[in-house]
């Protein structure tokens, strides 16, 4: 448990966010803060709007109402590449890796925004372009090291088992050296061992790089152990917000999601 870390100012605030698709309301008046360096978990039943919330944060969906303040800048909506260039990275519920590329190349794509060699040098693969490739390759190798996937770096990701794909996806997000990392069910479908590994990675990232992490997870054991704070969604509304202990004892949350004897 990392309670000893100093939690900073809010890095991200959402104010009265509402999102609907046609007549379906995905999110209703959601307000929340994410503080620097914290691990925030979002929980709730299926269809509660958890993934939609992440999609609003990094600009895949545009909210109908409300505003997002990120690093002191308030805006009605994000564009995905703007979010990326400002240090928001994420993983997906259904793995969204580039299946036709090797593990190494997948993680290298995470560094796209940090590479600037011009087209001319790229055509030659020499000079600036080559230096840049090598320099970023070093960074990527550090991540590969960290995630212990050295042996598969040249394998096509489409051929990897599920658990490893999730790990590579985390690697790709880490390659961007994000300030805010969004993890959408990073441990779904994993066995105990894989979950333990993944939890350790999440904690290490938070510890070593000070990365702020927002994660969606269904495994309550994991959520309660990992997170500094928990937000509970139900039918697109926020029904709980507090430390794991507070949320665990919240009557409304128990009724909606946790159930008794948790």
């Amino acid at each position, binding site marked *: 448990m990392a309670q000893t870390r100093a939690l900073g100012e809010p890095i991200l605030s959402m104010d009265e966010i509402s999102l609907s698709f046609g007549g379906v309301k995905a999110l209703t008046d959601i307000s929340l803060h994410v503080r620097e360096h914290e691990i925030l978990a979002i929980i709730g039943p299926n269809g509660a709007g958890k993934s939609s919330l992440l999609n609003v944060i*990094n600009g*895949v969906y545009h909210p109908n109402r409300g505003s997002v303040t990120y690093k002191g800048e308030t805006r009605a909506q994000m564009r*995905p*590449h703007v*979010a*990326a*260039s400002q240090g928001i*990275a*994420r993983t*997906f519920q259904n793995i*969204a*890796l*580039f*299946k*036709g*590329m090797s593990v190494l*190349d997948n993680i*290298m*794509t*995470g560094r*796209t*925004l940090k*590479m600037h*060699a011009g*087209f001319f040098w*790229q*055509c*030659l*693969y020499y000079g600036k*372009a*080559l230096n*840049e*490739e*090598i320099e970023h*390759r*070093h960074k990527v*190798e550090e991540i590969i090291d960290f995630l212990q996937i050295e042996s598969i770096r040249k394998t096509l990701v489409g051929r990897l088992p599920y658990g490893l794909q999730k790990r590579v996806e985390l690697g*790709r997000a880490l390659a*961007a050296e994000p300030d805010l990392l969004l993890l959408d069910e990073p441990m779904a479908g994993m066995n105990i061992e894989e979950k333990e590994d993944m939890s350790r990675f999440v904690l290490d990232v938070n510890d070593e790089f000070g990365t702020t992490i927002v994660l969606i997870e269904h495994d309550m054991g994991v959520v309660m152990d990992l997170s500094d704070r928990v937000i509970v969604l139900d039918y697109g509304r926020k029904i709980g917000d507090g430390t794991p202990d507070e949320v665990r004892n919240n009557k409304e949350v128990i009724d909606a999601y946790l159930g008794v004897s948790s």
Partner: protein
Amino acid sequence: MFYREAGQFKTSYTADQAAFPIAQDRIFIAIWLFIGFVAVPLLSNEYLFRAIFIPFLILALAALGLNLLVGYCGQVSLGTGAFMAVGAYAAYNFWTRIPGLNPLVAFMLAGGVATIVGILFGIPSLRIKGFYLAVATLAAQFFLDWVFSRIGWFTNYTPSGSIAVPPVELFGFAFASPVSKYLLCLTILVLFAVVAKNIVRGRIGRSWMATRDMDVAAEIIGIRPMYAKLSAFAVSSFFIGVAGALWGFVHLESWEPLAFDINRSFSILFMVIIGGLGSIMGAFLGAAFITVLPLFLNQLPTWIGIEVSTAMISHIEFMIFGALIIFFLAVEPLGMARMWRIGKEKLRLWPFPY
């Protein structure tokens, strides 16, 4: 046994990221270059140059360009013929309107014009995907076909609408003999292939492949789909435009818009599919195959001594192409290039079973 990397240790990332990290591959490429630049010119005759080698080289260049777009960036185009036409007609206009212009410069400028046209017709790719885009590129094909056959300015008001050019002349040397043409095309192709290889293994290539594999995720990482797609259209059209200029100036020497009609588009797409989507080697294999097959089919009846009409042969050619496309998509979507790679893997072990 003969193709294994054992004992070849890479001590730096530079070595690991080289185009051909394995020594056998380097030797292999060197052998091919030797065959291309020395053996073929010495051994081949005029007919082979005209009928096989020159068309093969130019079409391989076009297929390479199309493969960058379709195979690497995942944007299907059925307008290759039209973009080749843009290259050919642009080169012709630069060449006739600017006296004394070096033809090579004209070719590159023509590639530049094709690039602009390619980007223009690539713009719909920002809104639409897959076969919607394929249909949109057909618009380019039909529109440009019409432009070059109906608007006199592009053909310099030649009454017949067909264009004839003298042999390409560079620094006082006329590329009139088949051997010299062959070497000119080969040199250009090799240079372009190196550039293509460099682009696809760098940042731009990765952003293309990322867009191909999952565009939403690519955008979230910070790859702007607009840049990725339009740059793919641009580079691909440049290659194709130069190929078109070569096709007109070096191979045909006189041509009509029909030389660049929709069948040209399809045949180059077939080269890419049969050769291997997303592979440089594939473009070469596919171009070789599709250039040689019709000649082979034409000769076959005479060899085995039966009489078949030319119409029948062209029908059979259609059938074989169609069947092969389906076969490769269903059985080996990565084409002949993948078969080649599997062959290499086998060679690692051969003659031992494991």
